[in-house]
C-alpha cells in the first residue's frame, strides 16, 4: 500500500460524511416520492404516519393492503405509502374501492380522502357504502375547508368560521361526520385529532382488522388556509387549540360510552363549533352483516339451488 492510500483510508468517505437518518417507516413509505407536497404545519402526514403504524401493529399483510383516494391534499397519501395505491377521480374513491374489494375480497382496502372530496363531491357514495356495510376502512382528514384550491368553505366548515368564500363567517350548518356515519350504518366510528398521535395509531390498529364499514375522522390543521383565516395561527398553534378543547367521549367528562347498537346511535352533542369543546374518541363499535358476507351467501344459495334443480 502506498502512503497516499493509507491516508485516504483514514478519512471518512463521501458516503460516510453524509449522515444517514433512517425513517422509522421507511419500509412502508416510498422514498422516491418524497418530499411530500403538504404545507408546513399540515396534519395529513401525521395521520398517514399513524395509519401506517396502525396497520403494522394490526399485522395486516403488506401485500394485501390497498389504499384508494380521490382528489385533494388528503388524497395525496397514495403517493407516499408503499402499497397498492390508486389515486382516482374527485369524490369517487369509495366506489373505486368498492370495486377493488368485490373483485378480490381478500384485500384490505382503505379509503383516504378529505372532507370536501368525501362529503361534498362524493357524499352520496359515502352514505350508501355505509348503508351497505361495505368492507372498507374509510379515513376522512377533516381540515374544515378546501385547502388545495385556496381555502374555500366546504361541508364541514364550522358555523361562523371564516374561509376565502365566507369572509364574513360561514352561515351554513356543517355535517357532523361521526353522527352522519353512525346514522347511516357504519359499524365503527371514531374521531381523533392529529394531536392524538398514539390514540390515532391505536384506533387504526383496532379498526383495521374489523369487518364492514369503518369510519375514522381525523381533525387536522390547515394553517395556511383555515388556521390563518380564523386567527388560530400556525399548525402548532392549532395543536394547542385542540389540546385546550379536546374531551374524550366516555371519559371522566361524563359522556356516554361507545354505542354498541344502532338504535342508540345518537351522537348529538359531538358537533364541532369554533372555540367550543371538541369531542373525540370511539363513538360506535358494533357488528352487523357485511356486504361481502351477504353477497357471498346469496351466491352460495343460488349455486346450491341450481345444483339441486
Amino acid at each position, binding site marked *: 500500500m502506498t502512503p497516499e492510500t493509507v491516508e485516504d483510508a483514514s478519512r471518512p468517505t463521501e458516503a460516510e460524511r453524509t449522515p444517514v437518518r433512517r425513517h422509522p417507516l421507511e419500509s412502508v413509505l*416510498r422514498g*422516491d*416520492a418524497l418530499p411530500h407536497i403538504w404545507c408546513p404545519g399540515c396534519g395529513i402526514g401525521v395521520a398517514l404516519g399513524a395509519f401506517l403504524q396502525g396497520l403494522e401493529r394490526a399485522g395486516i399483510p403488506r*401485500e*394485501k393492503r*390497498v389504499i384508494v383516494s380521490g382528489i385533494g391534499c388528503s388524497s*395525496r397519501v*397514495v*403517493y407516499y405509502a*408503499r*402499497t*397498492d*395505491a*390508486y*389515486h*382516482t*377521480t374527485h369524490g369517487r374513491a369509495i366506489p373505486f374501492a368498492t370495486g*377493488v374489494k368485490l*373483485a*378480490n375480497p*381478500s*384485500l384490505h382496502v382503505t379509503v383516504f380522502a378529505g372532507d370536501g372530496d368525501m362529503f361534498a363531491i362524493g357524499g352520496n357514495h359515502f352514505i350508501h357504502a355505509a348503508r351497505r356495510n361495505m368492507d372498507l376502512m374509510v379515513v376522512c382528514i377533516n381540515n374544515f375547508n378546501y385547502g388545495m384550491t385556496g381555502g374555500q368553505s366546504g361541508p364541514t366548515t364550522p358555523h361562523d368560521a371564516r374561509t376565502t368564500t365566507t369572509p364574513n363567517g360561514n352561515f351554513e350548518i356543517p355535517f357532523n361526520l361521526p353522527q352522519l356515519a353512525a346514522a347511516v350504518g357504519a359499524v365503527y366510528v371514531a374521531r381523533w385529532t392529529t394531536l392524538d398521535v398514539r390514540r390515532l395509531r391505536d384506533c387504526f390498529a383496532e379498526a383495521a382488522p374489523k369487518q364492514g364499514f369503518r369510519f375514522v375522522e381525523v381533525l387536522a390543521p390547515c394553517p395556511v388556509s383555515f388556521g390563518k383565516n380564523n386567527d388560530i395561527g400556525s399548525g402548532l398553534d392549532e395543536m394547542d387549540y385542540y389540546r385546550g378543547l379536546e374531551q374524550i367521549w366516555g371519559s371522566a367528562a361524563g359522556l356516554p360510552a361507545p354505542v354498541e347498537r344502532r338504535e342508540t346511535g345518537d351522537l348529538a352533542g359531538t358537533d364541532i363549533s369554533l372555540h367550543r369543546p371538541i369531542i373525540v374518541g370511539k363513538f360506535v363499535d358494533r357488528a352487523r352483516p357485511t356486504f361481502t358476507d351477504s353477497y357471498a351467501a346469496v351466491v352460495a344459495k343460488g349455486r346450491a339451488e341450481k345444483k339441486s334443480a
Partner: protein
Amino acid sequence: MQARFGSHGDYAVIAYAPSSPQEAFDLTIEAFSAAERLRTPVLVMMDEVVGHMRERVIIPEEGRRTVSSRRLPSVAPSEYRPYRVGDDLVPEMALAGGGFAVRMTGLTHDESGRAVTNPTAQAALLPRLLKKVLENREVYERYEVRQTDDAEVLVVAYGITGRAATGAVEMARARGLRVGMFRPRTVWPFPADALLRAARSARRVVVAEINMGQVALEVERLLAGKCSVVRVTSPGGSVIAPERILEACGRAREVAARR
C-alpha cells in the same frame, strides 16, 4: 359528442351506440374487452328508447363469451413500473394484491406513477394516450352497412334511429329508390374509412339523429364537400319516424337531380 368532448382536455375513449337490447348486451362484453386491452374507459351509450326497450336477447352459454384481459406484468415486482411503455402503447397492468405495490393515478405521471405535473411530462403522456386508441381504432370499429353498393343516397344513423333508417331504406327500395344505410355502432372513434367506402356511390347523404345535429358534424367533416349532407334532426321526445327519413331521402335526391 359527450363521449368525445366532455372535458376541456384531450382524450380518446371508445364509445358504442347499440340499436337493440341484443346489441347492448354484445357491445357491453366488447366494451369490457376494449377497456381491458387498451386500459381506457369505454362507454356504452344507449339512447332513451334502447335503454327502455324490451326484446328477446340471446345470452351465449358461459364459456362461449370471450372477454380479452389486460396484459399482466411480465417482470418481477421490483422491476415493474405501472406506466412503462414497451412494444405496445398500452403498459402492462398489475392486479391489486399481487405484491407489485402499484401506484396508479389520474394526474399527469411518470412511468412509476409519480405525479409529475409539468409540461414535459404532459407532452410525453398525452399523445400516447390518444395514440393507443387511435392507432388501434380499426380493431374496435363496429358498423352496419346496408345496400350501399349502388346507393345514390346514403342514410347515416345510430342507436334507435338506426332502426328507423333501416325501415326508411326498405321503403325507399320498394319504391325503386337507390338508398343505402351506414350505421356506426362505434361512434367514437368514428369509423371514417368505412363511412367513405359506404358513401362511394352516394350523391347525397342524410344524417338522422335525435338532437339538433352532432354526428352530422363529423359526417360533414369526413365527406369534406364530396357530396352534400342533409340533416334530419329532432329536439327529442320521440323517435324519428322512418317516413321522415324517407322524405329527406327524396328531397336529397331531388336536390341531386337538379344539379
